């Protein structure tokens, strides 16, 4: 065994989630069980990613994340010129912070770097692109249903 590249690319949780879900579907179709160790770790990772308050908890129903989420998020944040690092964007994708308390853990020195208006704008865009937490989601669904 030889390691060619320790960090070829960073993966957002959503892409890992999608890979594991696709693998499960493929395995069911092939009707051939996966190796035991692989099956165990995959189901454990999926369980973890689906645990609230993970933003992927209701991914099956809400489908708030898709393959273009990352690109959309970056495009929408560009006009604000926040100067976020790659790691910070990745964590925003993974954790979907809904309050400035959680945002401050993800973005280093939040208070110094971003004014309150910019923080609010950032949170607004996160909620718009990646969706909101569960209760708000339910309200949104209800309001859509009522509208129809």
């Amino acid at each position, binding site marked *: 065994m030889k390691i060619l*590249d320790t960090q070829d690319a960073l*993966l957002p949780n959503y892409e890992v989630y999608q*890979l594991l879900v696709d693998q499960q579907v493929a395995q069911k179709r092939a009707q051939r069980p996966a190796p035991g160790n692989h099956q165990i770790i995959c189901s454990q990772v999926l369980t973890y990613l689906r*645990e609230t308050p993970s933003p992927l908890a209701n991914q099956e129903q809400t489908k708030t994340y898709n393959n273009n989420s990352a690109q959309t998020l970056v495009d929408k944040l560009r006009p604000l010129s926040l100067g976020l690092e790659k*790691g910070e964007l990745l964590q925003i994708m993974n*954790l979907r912070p809904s309050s400035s308390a959680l945002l401050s853990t993800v973005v280093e020195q939040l208070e110094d770097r971003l004014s309150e208006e910019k923080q609010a704008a950032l949170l607004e865009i996160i909620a718009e692109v990646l969706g909101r937490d569960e209760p708000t989601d339910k309200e949104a669904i209800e309001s859509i249903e009522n509208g129809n």
Partner: protein
Amino acid sequence: MFFLSKIADVIQIHPEKFNMRSEDALHENINTKYANKVIQGLGLCISLWDICWASEGLCDVYTGLCNVNVEFRMVVFRPFEGEVLQARIVSQTEEGIHLTVGFFDDIFVPGSELADGAQFRPDPDSNGKATWVVDLEEDDEKLYYDNHEMVHFSVLSEEWHDQTPTGPVEAEADPADQQLLPPYKIIGTMNAPGLGVCLWWQE
């Protein structure tokens, strides 16, 4: 939290898998060898991502095994320093709190890295079981780090322990080393606004 690592290896395919598509056979063999295992200095391997390149298979005359040189990318779990993750409290001792993310259990937050003023003491409300508690000054409230509670923590550092067996002479010389240490351990902190039990920060 997850990233891709490129690895080159020789994969041996057993003759009983010769009826499978070679790609499927490689997938299966790579996952059998790597999934759910820690590689020192790399992280915990989760699953195969894709195969970048594979050579022609060469059959061994004696065993019938087909040897294939493969370059592939694995999904690896290794949170970077300062990354915030969600995890669940498993147990707690005087030294600190043990966390789990379900597929990886060796996460530890020392008592000194909990919120300021956190104390480890028996609590009358939880059948005398000792837990870490934070006393809030303002309105005499207490915040508990209960077991099974979801928390956010930030990665402080990591520890690697190579588990390659040592020779018998060496092992006898130092019995303390014989204790099995986890191959990969994450040390975390929960001493910052936004970190700690998720419920505290919900609006």
